[in-house]
């Protein structure tokens, strides 16, 4: 079995700060983490490897620092990490990103058969959820997004049954392999890696691929050139001002609550 997992290193958004003057992100001091959903995708791949044998390859397109994230995947049990990194890739939107990842996966598929492509449901820095479906479309492979469980997986018969969460419930879908899944956290709970794996990972150096080696990417389709969308303007939502407060002690509970309810209603956020 060979599973390829696409991961992204993202700033831990719970720690993100914005420079109020420039409206830009202060990345300094903000820890970079593996996109949480992607870590669960890696875990699923590693579990399937333990069950069926084979290998797990992790790929990421990002700056040199993103190599740390690949090392963390190696801790989790991934066998190979590839960092696709080049100045020319920078400022890529999801269209350009899915092009680079799809071509990378094609190159890996040329090396040998691949059974499963795993993506996170979305990256928490941009929350777009577009890259996985984009790659599946480019590769012409079946797509199952928002996957929450793998009911069965048969690399010999090349079929699998996957659970997918939608608003109306859990869809149970059968697919041929290889297929591309974008996963929710429930797909596999992350277990602590054995110490030996952590030691091995600490000594592992991921491969680095550039825009020309070993795959020559079409420069018109990568980075800013290959990205139809551009950020016109970025700004911080105006900081919330503290609203008024009423004191039960002064007005009595009934009229305090009436007043508060009126405020909620006036804001028009929910109907009471």
């Amino acid at each position, binding site marked *: 079995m060979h599973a390829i997992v696409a991961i992204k290193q993202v700033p831990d958004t719970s720690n993100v700060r914005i420079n109020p003057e420039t409206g830009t992100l202060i990345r300094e001091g903000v820890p970079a983490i593996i996109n949480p959903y992607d870590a669960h995708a890696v875990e699923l791949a590693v579990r399937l490897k333990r069950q069926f044998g084979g290998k797990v390859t992790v790929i990421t397109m990002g700056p040199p620092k993103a190599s740390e994230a690949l090392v963390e995947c190696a801790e989790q049990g991934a066998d190979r990490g590839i960092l696709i990194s080049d100045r020319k890739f920078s400022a890529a939107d999801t269209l350009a990103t899915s092009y680079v990842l799809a071509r990378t996966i094609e190159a890996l598929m040329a090396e040998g058969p691949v059974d499963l492509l795993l993506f996170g449901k979305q990256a928490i820095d941009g929350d777009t959820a577009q890259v996985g479906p984009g790659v599946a479309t480019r590769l012409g492979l079946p797509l199952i997004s928002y996957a929450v469980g793998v009911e069965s997986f048969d690399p010999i018969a090349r079929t699998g049954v996957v659970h997918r969460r939608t608003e109306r419930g859990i869809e149970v879908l059968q697919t041929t392999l290889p297929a591309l899944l974008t996963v929710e956290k429930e797909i596999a709970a992350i277990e602590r890696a054995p110490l030996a794996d952590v030691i091995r990972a600490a000594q592992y150096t991921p491969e680095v691929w550039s825009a020309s080696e070993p795959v020559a990417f079409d420069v018109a389709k990568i980075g800013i050139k290959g990205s139809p969308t551009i950020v016109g*303007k970025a700004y911080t939502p105006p900081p919330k001002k503290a609203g008024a407060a009423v*004191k039960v002690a002064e007005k009595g509970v009934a009229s305090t609550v009436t007043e508060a309810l009126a405020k909620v209603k006036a*804001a028009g956020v929910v109907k009471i």
Partner: protein
Amino acid sequence: MSDTKRIWVLIEQEEGKAHPVSWELLGAAQRLAAELPGAVVEGVLLGDGVEGIAAEAYRYGATKVYLIDDPVLNVYRNAPYAYGIANLVKKYTPEIFLVGATTLGRDLASAIATRVATGLTADCTELAIDPDKHILAATRPTFGGNLMATILCKTQRPQMATVRPRVLPSPTPAETGAGELVREPLGMTEADVAVKLLKVIPTDSGEQVDIEYADVIVAGGRGLGAPEGFKLLEELAELLGGVVGASRAVVDAGWINVSRQIGQTGKTVRPKLFIAAGISGAIQHRVGITGSDFILAINSDPNAPIFSVADYGIVGDLYEVLPELINQIKAQRAGHGAPEVAHA
């Protein structure tokens, strides 16, 4: 036809029922059309035996509906839907294409955009026409709501965006409406589709709480005094169609499951209404709630930091305030209709 600028809206349907976000988008499309000379608002509808929905779309302002009706489209699957719509896009070259940012819509829009090689802005909360460039300016929150970004797509067409349900107002439908129905073939058979739906397990309304996406959250902290306090919060949450959340202090104390924890080490939430009862509002908690549209805080300590982010505060004992709140809401309901999340 050269000067006609088509603004398309995906009429999302499942099991023959249209998703309300489709109407919100038709409303938005009409506002955009008013700013864009030569623009027309049209719907795109796919499914199996769904023609009836087109009539509804006319009432919400679509002048034309492109319909692909085919048994292969009986249940939603990415490949045939994306294939069918991409063909429509290539044939009719819309200027703008709006899709709801639902599970279905986000899955589908990305595949369409990739097929027609255009830009797609995800999960927008605001749409406008840039007055100088006459193109779509789609605004969306990024970085956990810390930053708003306005995205433009200058070169490729259509300009695509998915839009969050319920952030745009829902228009009132006209009594009657008429439009043109354009039927197109799918051009694909069941044998071409690799993914088969075996069954659907309906969501049970039990412990599957998704507080991250809840519209109303009633959260409690150590001020509840004891785990039993959550019963009161549950009652209020149920009344408002919301869910119960918590501060870390009470999760650590074992009063409630960690899945409810909000804040730096818990979940970041963006409900329309957040009620904080007996929560001091430490910075680690606050970072998780500032994306809320309206925060109502109840705390006996007038200096509690939660008041600094609250849209409205009540200084008092939550055990006095909450029962009164529940009573007053019930009393008002007795007068009016059923609860509903406002489309405002």
